[in-house]
């Protein structure tokens, strides 16, 4: 949908797995905010028969594809500061209005990247102590305001350590805010009863998920059914 420039789609298989699964969260008629980075790529995987409006927190509802070379407008960017276009029916507004939408619960779904997610649904995705702090941007607002918060991230870090933790070790972006976590290995829901494994990604065993997850989680009775559907 966003007609990514060549090169941008050369992502690792793990990232593509995550992004494709995340796209399934998006239903017809939704208002959607996609975070910077991997979440932005989800736009490309939204089926053509689904109409959604993408919100950009810098003041736009109705993000369109990247512009044709030579037609880029410096006054028209997304929250990742990339040049974009708009779809018919788009609207512009100021940053207070944009976050009124977000904070007020009008966005159906937000998909954000994560550094760590804990078993009670805490999210850390904005700072690593000792490294330069860049800032949280709109992430802290999005996790509290959106009707549904989906976090997408790789299940383990470069050292092979689980990013799905009992307790986040990094400073939080939000406490008990994640509704669903999608990794390259599995999909989890966060409920008042606790964290529940609802799907494993294709080719991933339950044992692998257990081995690579620090968090305690329950297993959904319908888990195997989900695997069979695949």
């Amino acid at each position: 949908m966003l007609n990514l420039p060549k090169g941008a789609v050369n992502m690792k298989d793990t990232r593509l797995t995550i992004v494709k699964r995340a796209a399934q969260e998006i239903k017809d008629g939704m208002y959607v905010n996609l975070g910077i980075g991997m979440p932005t790529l989800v736009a490309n995987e939204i089926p053509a028969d689904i109409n959604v409006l993408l919100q950009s927190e810098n003041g736009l509802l109705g993000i369109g594809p990247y512009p044709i070379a030579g037609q880029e407008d410096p006054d028209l960017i997304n929250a990742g500061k990339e040049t974009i276009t708009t779809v018919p029916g788009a609207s512009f507004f100021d940053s207070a209005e944009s976050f009124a939408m977000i904070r007020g619960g009008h966005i159906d779904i937000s998909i954000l990247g994560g550094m760590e997610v804990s078993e009670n649904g805490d999210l850390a995705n904005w700072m690593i102590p000792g490294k330069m702090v860049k800032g949280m941007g709109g992430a802290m607002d999005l996790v509290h305001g959106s009707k549904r918060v989906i976090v997408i991230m790789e299940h383990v870090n470069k050292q092979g350590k689980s990013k799905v933790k009992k307790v986040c070790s990094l400073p939080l972006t939000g406490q008990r805010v994640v509704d669903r976590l999608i990794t390259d290995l599995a999909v989890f829901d966060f409920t008042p009863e606790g964290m529940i494994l609802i799907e494993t990604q294709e080719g991933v065993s339950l044992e692998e998920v257990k081995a690579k997850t620090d968090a305690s989680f329950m297993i959904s009775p319908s888990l195997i059914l989900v695997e069979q559907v695949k």
Partner: protein
Amino acid sequence: MKNSKLMNSFKEAISDINDGATLIVGGFGLCGIPEKTIQALKEKGTKNLTVVSNNCGVDDWGLGLLLANKQIKKMISSYVGENKIFEQQFLSGELEVELTPQGTLAERIRAGGAGIPGFYTATGVGTPIAEGKEVKEFDGKTYLLERGIVGDFALVKAWKADTLGNLVYHKTARNFNPLAAMAGRITIAEVEEIVEAGELQPDEIHTPGIYVQRILLGTDYQKRIEKRTVVHA
């Protein structure tokens, strides 16, 4: 009254921005920033500024120019990741930084402009930015008290102004500009075109002129693009 808001030069428009002033500056990244006013401020060399702005430009453009010139004492921002000079000054302790979630920052500026000294938001509860802030429960949920922000000056960039200071913005270059305009004790607006009063449709004005004290016509806008993403037809 009609033309008294029109300034002759950027130098004149910022002549009373003195050391230690608090500025609220519009823009998101390099989009919709008051680039001419920032340049004039660099030339003037005003020091010890507190700057409220979502971002801090890049090393050689936008607010980054004031950073490089060591004119900024404190930044209140939501994201400052595009700027190496920022990092150096922050790590050396030269620069004070108050990180504020983007939505909270936008609302704090609007609140300042709207005479609201404080409001509650769930944003940031349980995170480092909650430290030292008052909390309050409403209907069983916890919220943080956040304060309105007022600036000595607001620097904004609009697309068009009329001679009474009514402003319209262009696409996502609107962003923080209308809020900044509300929250400056003196608001300085630079624009790409100035028209006569009555030429802007009253239903389509984004910032009523009451918020704008000084208007300037800018020329040769650079409007730098941070991330040029295009498709090839």
